[in-house]
């Protein structure tokens, strides 16, 4: 995609052209079927021709004035971080994702690096002592950046990226790129390092139809050969044993194995054989090469091993497992694990055979015979490691319910090495171990020492040292946050105690007095303990005094700036993170989460209702079956709540949080099932009674994008529903991409806007308004369009509709107050554009006390304007403050990793093309089609946030301050002040000066008063 470059000067010097032209058509061009009863309004965006000459002197003058005006206006809104504020309110955590390949850097003794390639297309090096990143490379998302293979040799790490599209070599010390070459197209199968005479100089890449050999030093291709019979044979593996030959192994499923041997020097086919193997379907899953080129396969159907010497034989030898005295777990596909410590030498003749989930065997191929060296049962994970010459095998076996033990065994003999036991404690809130990576090294006395990196099901990486000390843990699940909420922290224990006292019901004077006295006593006790702690800490050196945040000492600060971030990740692990420091305070792994689950997190009870604990509910829905479960937990401590959620037997469609509360101050959650029946949680008698009373005013809407249907329902008193409106979008023309309502906790302070003549333009603040975005199914640049519909969710009335032609998604929408801002790609002008819609009631309010969607006779006035934005965007959100007095900013996550805070006043459809006295009075910025990105607007200065997927905003106790969390691959938390910190004294406020001046004045007054008295007295005596 090439972006047409638009010169700035043109727009600057010609402010008089019309940017938006609204054209009305009766129907979409031949595309709208008759049942589509929505009248369409097309908004065409037209810019004047580019080459129109505008070379008047006045134009230059206008340009200059324009520019000056712009500068003045922009200067007034500058905000940036001072150098000494860096890291004071903000923090960033960098993640890499679930590990796919891992290599310990072994070429240098006492190296501290581990190389990791992950499923999030990240290649990183981590410090094994601290768990911090040395460097990290983030590739493209999706299959284009997918890391297919990671090979390491010496200082170089070779990556195959994007289904064999690219071959890259990285220097692992500094993370720099050595070279990169683009490979021929073709789907990637396998890659291996090729060594010859103890040196490794080449890497072989096998694709569906070709094999190519590249130099490790510069990536140049040595030779490339087409594979014979590649139409019928599925070539899957490549192997080299260091003897100058490269073997390519292919299979014709359920027929035979094809083996082709190439000469290392010129790529000539040395040998081509095919061996009968009717039981084999996949080489990579069931075969390994061991020893001197012995292909060993396992067949679960015949419960036997097959061996084949690649050099000589043309017939597979079957070795039934029973002949070895072994038995496979029924239904388990046995797995073979081998190791090739040096690519220039053949693999070891020892290998692991996994026969069951917890059953491993160490086998050895000894002169054509397979010998069992050791039987490991139970053993969950095994791994080979080669420190120096000898290879060792690490085996993890369960010890008890909460711990596993790791032991090292000699690979040659299967004997246990002494003093190599390592205890790995399982986290009760974590998953089971999934992968084991072992870093073995030789100690000074030639004994083997090791450290292990364990990856668990919840994507946690734990690095452990003997005898079981955890060196670090990385919660890689946080690289994939799905949804989050911020919850206020509770008051301190003592405050809560007092509050609890007043919260309880009075039962007699004496008991009240006693209660008061006891709580005062507790306060006194806490105060003394605090003093004692201060005294105790003061004696210790400062470095030892830690003020770590733990769950025990969590408390709300004065301005409620510190909150608990509850994060839900795709792996099903929940986290509670302190927003001030980024410390993970609790974690909870929900197992049995389906891989395509949809999550919805709701706060049912906040911390404001002491002594009732706060309560969050997570709705987890399996998209395949439609069945959903509820997980109810305490967001401060992460513990599962005692409240038992209802069992949801029917497939769920949506949930709806009502502002009504039960007797224990928990908000009522309505769950809508596929029969459009509603169940309430909690469903006490009181709640049901309240629901019956309010049923006629409870509405909900459902959007089914597969059927292109929007429907609105009303609740009946018997908790069934009735359909009251329905809008159908023909799915063959367009599909519904997103639906945005307003945030329930949003406050709008001002009900209108003051005009230049000091009259009021009242905002159309419909709390039930929905912004529905549709995209055309036709993606041709000339015919594609996006549509935006503003629908009243209660009545289904279409308030406004616009179609923008020659535009394409992805569309990012923010809907707040009385405005909707959306961003899209204009295929006509090939650029990103922002459009803003604002709704106004007019100069008079229809009803200033009550808003009812059912009683709205007048349609709102709609204003719209569009702008050019110089970058594509990843996500967008609006700031949110406690009372809504502070002006709003849009927080825009850019693909470059910046988070831009764009003042909403730049996206204002009332920006005039020609400045008048009144618009100047209103402080409107003259319209300019281009929105500029100013570097001061980046709230994350140099703290790049990779792949921002979402931005969450929460109000703080200070009206000026909004808390922001951006999540994606990284997590970044900061505060923004859209109208600057009008309610806070500056950091550099000179308390000393002010107080000393005050004191000086006070004393001066006292002294002069005394002097005056003395003088008066003297005069009286004279």
């Amino acid at each position, binding site marked *: 995609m090439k972006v047409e470059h638009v010169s700035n000067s043109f727009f600057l010097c010609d402010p008089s052209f019309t940017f938006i032209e609204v054209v009305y058509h009766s129907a979409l061009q031949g595309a709208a079927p008759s049942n589509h009863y929505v009248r369409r309004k097309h908004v065409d965006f037209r810019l004047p021709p580019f080459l129109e000459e505008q070379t008047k002197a006045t134009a230059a003058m206008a340009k200059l004035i324009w520019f000056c005006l712009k500068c003045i206006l922009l200067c007034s809104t500058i905000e940036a971080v001072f150098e000494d504020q860096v890291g004071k309110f903000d923090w960033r955590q960098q993640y890499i994702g679930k590990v796919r390949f891992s290599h310990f850097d072994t070429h240098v003794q006492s190296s501290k690096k581990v190389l990791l390639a992950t499923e999030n297309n990240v290649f990183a090096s981590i410090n094994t002592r601290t768990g911090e990143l040395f460097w990290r490379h983030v590739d493209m998302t999706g299959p284009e950046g997918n890391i297919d293979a990671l090979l390491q040799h010496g200082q170089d790490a070779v990556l195959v990226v994007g289904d064999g599209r690219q071959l890259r070599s990285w220097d692992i010390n500094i993370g720099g790129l050595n070279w990169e070459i683009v490979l021929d197209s073709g789907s990637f199968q396998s890659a291996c390092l090729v060594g010859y005479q103890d040196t490794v100089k080449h890497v072989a890449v096998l694709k569906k139809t070709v094999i190519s050999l590249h130099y490790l030093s510069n990536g140049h291709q040595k030779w490339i050969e087409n594979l014979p019979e590649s139409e019928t044979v599925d070539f899957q593996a490549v192997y080299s044993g260091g003897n100058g030959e490269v073997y390519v192994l292919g299979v014709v499923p359920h027929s035979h194995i094809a083996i082709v041997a190439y000469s290392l020097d010129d790529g000539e086919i040395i040998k081509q054989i095919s061996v009968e193997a009717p039981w084999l379907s996949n080489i990579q899953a069931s075969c390994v090469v061991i020893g001197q080129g012995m292909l060993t396969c396992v067949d679960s159907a015949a419960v036997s091993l097959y061996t084949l010497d690649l050099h000589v034989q043309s017939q597979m030898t079957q070795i039934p497992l029973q002949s070895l005295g072994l038995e496979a777990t029924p239904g388990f596909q046995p797995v073979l694990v081998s190791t090739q410590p040096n690519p220039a030498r053949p693999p070891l003749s020892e290998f692991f055979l996994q026969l069951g989930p917890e059953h491993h065997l160490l086998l050895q191929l000894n002169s054509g015979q397979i010998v069992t060296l050791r039987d490991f049962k139970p053993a969950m994970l095994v791994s080979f490691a080669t420190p120096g010459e000898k290879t060792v095998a690490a085996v993890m076996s369960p010890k008890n319910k909460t711990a596993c033990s790791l032991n090292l065994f000699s690979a040659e003999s299967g004997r246990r090495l002494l003093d190599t036991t390592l205890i790995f404690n399982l986290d009760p809130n974590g998953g089971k171990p999934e992968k084991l990576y072992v870093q073995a090294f030789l100690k000074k006395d030639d004994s083997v020492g090791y450290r292990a990196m364990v990856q668990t099901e919840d994507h946690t990486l734990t690095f452990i040292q003997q005898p079981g000390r955890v060196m670090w843990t990385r919660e890689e699940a946080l690289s994939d946050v799905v949804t989050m909420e911020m919850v206020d922290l509770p008051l301190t224990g003592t405050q809560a105690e007092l509050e609890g006292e007043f919260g309880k019901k009075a039962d007699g004077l004496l008991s009240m007095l006693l209660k008061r006295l006891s709580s005062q006593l507790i306060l006194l006790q806490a105060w003394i303990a605090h003093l004692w702690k201060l005294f105790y800490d003061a004696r210790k050196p400062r470095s030892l005094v830690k003020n770590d945040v733990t769950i025990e000492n969590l408390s709300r600060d004065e301005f409620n700036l510190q909150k608990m971030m509850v994060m839900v990740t795709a792996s099903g692990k929940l986290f509670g993170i302190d927003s001030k420091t980024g410390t993970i305070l609790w974690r909870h792994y929900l197992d049995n989460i389906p891989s395509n689950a949809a999550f919805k997190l709701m706060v049912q009870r906040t911390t404001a209702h002491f002594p009732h604990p706060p309560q969050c509910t997570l709705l987890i829905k399996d*998209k395949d079956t439609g069945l959903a479960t509820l997980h109810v937990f305490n967001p401060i401590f992460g513990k599962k709540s005692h409240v038992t959620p209802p069992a949801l037997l029917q497939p769920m469609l*949506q949930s709806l949080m009502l502002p009504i509360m039960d007797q224990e101050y928990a908000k009522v959650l309505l769950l809508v099932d596929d029969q459009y029946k509603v169940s309430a949680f909690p469903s006490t008698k009181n709640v049901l009674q309240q629901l019956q009373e309010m049923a006629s005013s409870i509405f909900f809407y*459902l959007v089914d994008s597969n059927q292109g249907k929007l429907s609105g329902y009303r609740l009946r008193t018997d908790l069934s529903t009735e359909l009251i409106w329905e809008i159908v979008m023909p799915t063959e023309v367009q599909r519904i991409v*997103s639906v945005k309502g307003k945030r329930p906790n949003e406050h709008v302070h001002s009900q209108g806007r003051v005009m230049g003549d000091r009259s009021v333009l009242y905002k159309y603040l419909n709390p039930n308004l929905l912004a529905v975005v549709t995209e055309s199914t036709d993606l041709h640049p000339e015919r594609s369009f996006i549509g935006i519909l503003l629908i009243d969710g209660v009545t289904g009335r279409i308030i406004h509709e616009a179609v923008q032609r020659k535009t394409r998604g992805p569309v990012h929408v923010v809907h707040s107050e009385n405005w909707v801002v959306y961003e899209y790609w204009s295929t006509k002008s090939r650029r990103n554009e922002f459009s803003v819609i604002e709704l106004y009631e007019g100069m008079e309010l229809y009803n200033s006390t009550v808003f009812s969607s059912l009683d709205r006779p007048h349609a709102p006035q709609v204003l719209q304007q569009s702008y050019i934005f110089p970058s594509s965007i990843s996500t967008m959100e609006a700031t949110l403050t406690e009372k809504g007095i502070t002006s709003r900013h849009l927080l825009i996550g850019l693909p470059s990793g910046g988070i831009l805070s764009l003042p909403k006043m730049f996206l204002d459809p009332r920006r005039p093309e020609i400045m008048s006295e009144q618009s100047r009075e209103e402080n409107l910025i003259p319209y300019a089609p281009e929105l500029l990105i100013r570097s001061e607007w980046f709230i994350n200065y140099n703290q790049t946030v990779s792949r921002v997927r979402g931005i969450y905003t929460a109000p703080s106790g200070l009206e000026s301050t909004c808390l922001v969390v951006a999540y994606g691959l990284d997590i970044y938390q900061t505060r923004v002040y859209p109208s600057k910190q009008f309610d806070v004294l500056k950091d550099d406020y000179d308390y000393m000066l002010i107080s000393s001046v005050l004191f000086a004045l006070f004393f001066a007054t006292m002294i002069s008063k005394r002097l005056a008295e003395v003088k008066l007295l003297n005069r009286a005596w004279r």
Partner: protein
Amino acid sequence: MASPGGQGGGAVSTRGGGGGARRMKWALELSLGNSRSRADRQGGQGDVVYPIGYSEKPVPDTSIQETDKNLVEKRCWDVALGPLKQIPMNLFIMYMSGNTISIFPIMMVCMMAWRPIQALMSMSATFKLLESSSQQWLQGLVYLVGNLLGSALAIYKCQSMGLLPTHSSDWLAFIGPPQRMEIMGGGMVL
């Protein structure tokens, strides 16, 4: 001890005071009987020497009384018309100070508004002043109208400066958010 000014205007003595005059070696007397001691003595003797132009008969002085009354009237009108006379000046100041809200225009507007109010508050005192006038009521009315005009002018100035809450926007902050009648929620089918 000093001689009254009206009488001793012509007397020149090096050192005032009868007691002191005796000690002097010499004294020049320009007018007769101007020294107090001598005048006392002369008074005592009944030998009166009148100053030039003095007549013992009282002279009727009606003309002076008439002008006095005119003067009082004039003075009263001055008082009554005072506020009205200030209006052109105020207008000029208003024009000069402009409509921007800064310290000086605000001070001027405050002065302009405060003065008529003050005057209206001390109306009774003014009436007392005007008591002697025959056209007391008319003058009082004119005074009142003048002050009212002055304050109207101040209000007009406030209005033009935008200090009066006369627009709907001035009451915007008091409009609370409307109450929601319906509860609505939902979303995409999960």
